[in-house]
């Protein structure tokens, strides 16, 4: 990212523009920008056909040293699992390994302590850095925006494109900002902030945009929470999201395995501090979300915008002005087995899932453990904790969190995507109702006929104990 391009810009610019401009190789004839990819993370379910394509056209991986692979989507999360534990996943897991070996790409496979969900290990290992541009074949790559990085989620053809060229040809996203103003109430987490923003602005609000999250409430968030926030930029319809780096970010990055060290780190940090939006920078779309009005959020439908406070009710579709939204809401309520006007608090649940790149970092598990400590999961509920990475699992075990969860009746599993995408053996049965810390509540997402309510880790923990959705602010959680 040559620095001269930064100083050349006299116009007030956004943090996003500064980082994007620093990665611009050139603007193509069709108006798209060719941008350089500093880091490329591969996972097993979207890379095999990309390597096939590469081989067919006899191309090589241009920068294997900037590429890292892991195994997360289809791995078994059975405690003590290995690459063979999920027979259905064997083919893709083997291909991830053989392709990485053949192209000299570093792989953190299921047997490596650095294994984990792509978007969890990127920041954790210092692969994702503030101001860098990172690509990965999974839509929630926006997660790394929590560090002030540009995380671009791509499909398999683009994975092949990055492997072959170390660039992406993209339409430059437009600038959007969401400012969170006011004081955040008790029990309200980054997950609730972003769910509320999606509910308020809708799932298409960010189309074609890079969203910067700003405001005092955001500045106060630790990096792990910022990662949660940026993760769900995709559910806001955006291409990516970011929080401009600050001292909190810099301290988070310091000392991570692949982060710069010593003098390099100080030089890097000086540059990271400059990656903020100028006061006069223009945002094509600018929204305000009032934090004081946010209570813990729970989705009631089959789109992330179908969301309400736990102290609210399932809406009456008739109340939606827009006819299409009305039909969708009615269909969603039917699919979810709910009734308009029903209180969200008290909806009985069958499964509670804590995991996914949205909410599976150490702070998420700690928040859930605080609720769970010394209590029991309701008899009819299957409750699971799936740490986002093997190192999160180890850190949690060092703190004794695994004991707290297991004593309460939670399953304590090995790291992976698990019930977020349910391509491995972790599936919600048809008709069953799951409250989950994931990012998508689509029909059939967690298994055919599954019903999903999205919420924060503490809310999921409280529901697991109570056996029904409950307002954790009421103290007991039961």
């Amino acid at each position, binding site marked *: *990212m*040559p*620095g001269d391009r930064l100083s050349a810009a006299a116009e007030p610019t956004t943090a996003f523009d500064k980082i994007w401009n620093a990665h611009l190789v050139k603007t193509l004839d069709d108006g798209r920008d060719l941008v350089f990819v500093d880091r490329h993370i591969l996972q097993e379910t979207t890379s095999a056909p990309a390597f096939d394509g590469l081989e067919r056209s006899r191309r090589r991986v241009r920068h294997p040293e900037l590429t890292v692979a892991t195994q997360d989507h289809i791995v078994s999360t059975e405690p003590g699992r290995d690459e063979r534990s999920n027979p259905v996943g064997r083919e893709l897991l083997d291909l991830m390994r053989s392709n990485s070996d053949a192209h000299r790409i570093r792989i953190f496979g299921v047997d490596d302590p650095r294994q984990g969900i792509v978007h969890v290990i990127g920041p954790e290992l210092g692969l994702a850095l503030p101001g860098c541009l990172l690509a990965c*074949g999974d839509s929630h790559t926006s997660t790394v925006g929590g560090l002030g990085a540009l995380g671009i989620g791509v*499909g398999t*053809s683009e994975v092949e*494109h990055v492997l072959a*060229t170390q660039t992406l040809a993209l339409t430059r996203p437009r600038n959007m900002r969401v400012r969170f103003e006011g004081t955040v109430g008790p029990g309200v987490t980054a997950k609730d902030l972003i769910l509320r923003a999606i509910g308020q602005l809708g799932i298409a609000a960010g189309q074609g945009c890079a969203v910067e999250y700003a405001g005092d409430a955001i500045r106060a968030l630790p990096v792990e929470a910022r990662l949660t926030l940026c993760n769900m930029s995709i559910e806001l319809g955006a291409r990516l999201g970011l929080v401009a780096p600050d001292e909190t970010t810099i301290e988070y990055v310091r000392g991570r395995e692949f982060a710069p060290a010593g003098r390099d780190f100080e030089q890097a940090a000086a540059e990271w501090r400059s990656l903020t939006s100028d006061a006069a920078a223009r945002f094509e779309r600018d929204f305000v979300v009032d934090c004081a009005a946010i209570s813990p959020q729970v989705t009631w439908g089959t789109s992330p915008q179908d969301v309400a406070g736990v102290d609210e009710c399932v809406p009456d579709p008739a109340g939606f002005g827009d006819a299409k939204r009305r039909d*969708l809401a009615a269909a969603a309520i039917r699919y979810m087995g709910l009734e308009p006007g029903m209180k969200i608090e008290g909806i009985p649940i069958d499964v509670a899932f804590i995991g996914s790149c949205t909410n599976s970092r150490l702070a998420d598990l700690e928040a859930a453990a605080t609720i769970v400590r010394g209590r029991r999961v309701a008899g009819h509920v299957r409750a699971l904790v799936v740490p986002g990475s093997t190192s999160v699992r180890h850190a949690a075990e060092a703190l004794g969190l695994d004991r707290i969860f297991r004593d309460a009746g939670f399953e304590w599993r090995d790291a992976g995507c698990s019930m977020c995408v349910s391509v491995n053996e972790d599936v919600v049965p048809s008709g069953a109702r799951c409250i989950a810390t994931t990012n998508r509540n689509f029909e*059939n997402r967690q298994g055919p006929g599954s019903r999903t309510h999205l919420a924060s880790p503490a809310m999921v923990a409280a529901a697991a104990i109570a056996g029904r959705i409950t307002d954790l602010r009421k103290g007991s959680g039961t």
Partner: protein
Amino acid sequence: MRPGFAGVTGVMAVMPLANVNTDAIIPSAWLRTARADFGKGLFGSQRYGADGRERPEFVLNRAPFRHAKILLADENFGCGSSREAAVWALAQFGIRCVLAPSFADIFYENAFRNGLLVAKIDAASYLALAAAVDRHGQDPIFIVDLPAGTVTGPDGARFPFAVPAARAAALIRGDDEIDMTLHHAGDIEAYHAAAAATHPWLYAGTDTAEIAP
């Protein structure tokens, strides 16, 4: 290079829904192997019952829509995830063109990369086209003409659609995106060399010399 694509003539099927997401287009059950029959999995959750049998009420299970080549949908088609199999599923089923008032960003990019035409129509055209399919339910043959930017119905009514000119040209020529980019390999290397000189820390620690081939 892939074969050039200037348009398609064929049956149009309608998914009269907004926000059709990629999980609906290709459910995760079809994503567990490297070379699944994605065309069979297209809209799998809606197309098949729990017993795996076709549900006769689903549009793509009915004649003439079993052989649809054009799909009409409402806004924000392809939202959800980056799963490119959503595009492969449509293409392998035989869909060559999706018409909708708007598309989700990643789906839109993925479609062009795989030679699937995704064309934006206005809301009025969406309604008129859906009505035309209804009226000509036995023989809903439409003509999509990419160079002209129009779709013509069985009764001759013609509607414009929007495709960025450069995208249309690339589809018509059958450009391979990676080849196109590699024409700029010199610029890419110059960029990388400059970045490595000014930002050595960005590439420090990424050396893979220790990785065995």
